[in-house]
């Protein structure tokens, strides 16, 4: 019993990060119909920016990050993420013009690779310690399970993001963004600056990625080049597909589902001493396959 409670707690923690990454993916897909494979690096690069703020710009040293600076560092990271998102749209995506989904996927994967390479060159291919905003944890009442405060922080951050997004999609720019996503020509005829709306979606996705990067590095208490892509990107993407690609709520629901499924897979494999390579990844792929076979529009998406 206890172990399954742990599965759920860890599942929710991972799931919330998948959800943050997934929200960025869904937002960009909704606004510009592009699967942004660079979303993960829109998390890792800002996390490195935060680390730089906390270590006094020590790119390769062993300077310990000053946890007291985590809040301003996170603000810097979010700004860097937003800027990077806008740049990615303006410099790479928009000049591509109307291309097939595969072409834009390859382009964004190329950007992810490029950013990872830059990270390795600047910060070296090694792990740096990365702080959490709150250390330690607490006993879940009535159990022996210890819940990290960091898990609470991540869930609270996701809840804050959800509220902010809900408010945004009621505001004039938010509604104009939804209109642009549906029919750019009709939106333009009302004077909506369509290109600026698309850039706004990419910028917001970058900010979400940054938050996922900082909190995700906190999960491992370490940061390596390519971290968010290698640990959170595939499950987040799968969660978004599960949730219905353009659905924000679906991205979060799908993220949690994938978080719990992958933790459960680890648990099953250890309990029964199964000899399976990479159980969480495998579980994720099983979900992806099941969705594509049985419900290609996802749980909450509408069929095209």
């Amino acid at each position, binding site marked *: 019993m206890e172990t399954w409670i742990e599965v759920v707690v860890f599942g929710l923690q991972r799931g919330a990060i998948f959800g943050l990454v997934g929200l960025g993916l869904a937002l960009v897909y909704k606004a510009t119909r592009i699967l942004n494979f660079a979303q993960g690096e829109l998390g890792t690069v800002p996390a490195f920016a935060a680390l730089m703020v906390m270590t006094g710009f020590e790119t390769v040293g062993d300077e310990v990050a000053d946890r007291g600076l985590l809040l301003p560092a996170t603000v810097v990271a979010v700004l860097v993420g937003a800027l990077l998102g806008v740049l990615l749209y303006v410099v790479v995506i928009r000049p591509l013009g109307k291309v097939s989904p595969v072409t834009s996927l390859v382009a964004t994967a190329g950007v992810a690779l490029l950013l990872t390479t830059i990270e390795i060159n600047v910060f070296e291919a090694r792990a740096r310690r990365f702080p959490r905003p709150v250390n330690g944890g607490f006993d879940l009442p009535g159990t022996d399970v210890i819940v990290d405060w960091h898990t609470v922080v991540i869930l609270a951050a996701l809840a804050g993001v959800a509220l902010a997004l809900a408010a945004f999609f009621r505001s004039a720019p938010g*509604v104009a963004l939804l*209109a642009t996503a549906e029919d750019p020509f*009709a939106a333009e005829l009302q004077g909506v*600056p369509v290109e600026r709306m698309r850039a706004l979606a990419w910028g917001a996705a970058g900010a979400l990625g940054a938050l996922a990067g900082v909190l995700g590095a906190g999960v491992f208490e370490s940061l390596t080049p390519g971290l968010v892509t290698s640990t959170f990107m595939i499950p987040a993407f799968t969660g978004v597909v599960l949730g219905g690609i353009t659905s924000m709520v679906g991205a979060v629901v799908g993220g949690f589902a994938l978080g719990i499924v992958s933790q459960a897979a680890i648990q099953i494999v250890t309990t029964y001493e199964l000899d399976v390579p990479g159980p969480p990844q495998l579980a994720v792929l099983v979900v992806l396959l099941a969705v594509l076979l049985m419900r290609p529009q996802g749980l909450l998406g509408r069929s095209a």
Partner: protein
Amino acid sequence: MPEQTKEMVELVDLRAGYGALPVLHGFSIAVAPGEVAVLLGLNGAGKSTAVKVLCGAVAATGGSVRYRGEEITGCSTAGCVQKGIVMVPEGRRVFGGLSVERNLQVGSWTQRGNRGWVEAQRAHVYEVLPRLAERRDQLAGTLSGGEQQMLAIGRGLMANPSVLVIDEASLGLAPVIVREILKIARNLAEEGTTVILVEQNVGALEVADVGFFVDQGVVTATLRGKELADGELIRSLYLG
């Protein structure tokens, strides 16, 4: 200095097209403030192209667009909306996944800084188009064709137009709904908005102050007064 003129909108010797394909070959019309103008003509005559040039959605390759006597050729769509030239596009193109109320909110984009005005205008739109008021929380995609057309017009009105262009309002609608929409257009003009209707339906001439017959990218006839009700004359225009 712009020359003094009593016209609201003038298209003068306009030339435009798509890529290598020219569509307008010296297209000219003039519409006075508060008039209802109707552009008639066969499919592919260039009516939609002409009004798209007026709204900045298609570039002119020659000639000029004047608004209140001011030369505005080459103005962007957003710039035109800002000035008060607003188009309700062919095919309505409401935002199907958004509610009626949200569609109107998108319409008021250029006016969003003026909350008081937007509130009052929304109330006015619901008054002029009462079917929308009953359905304000309904998704636009689930409205009937006639209701969608009214929503598209309401959305256009939320941008505070001085000139409202409606492209093929009557397409695919029952005659009784078409009459209702034409009456709405007439009433808008009585309130001072200049209305330009692009129509296949000659019945629209009943509410018109001026009619332009368009053929192969030029205006071949301008009808005013009694001519607007001269069935014989109109039939001869269609027969060429």
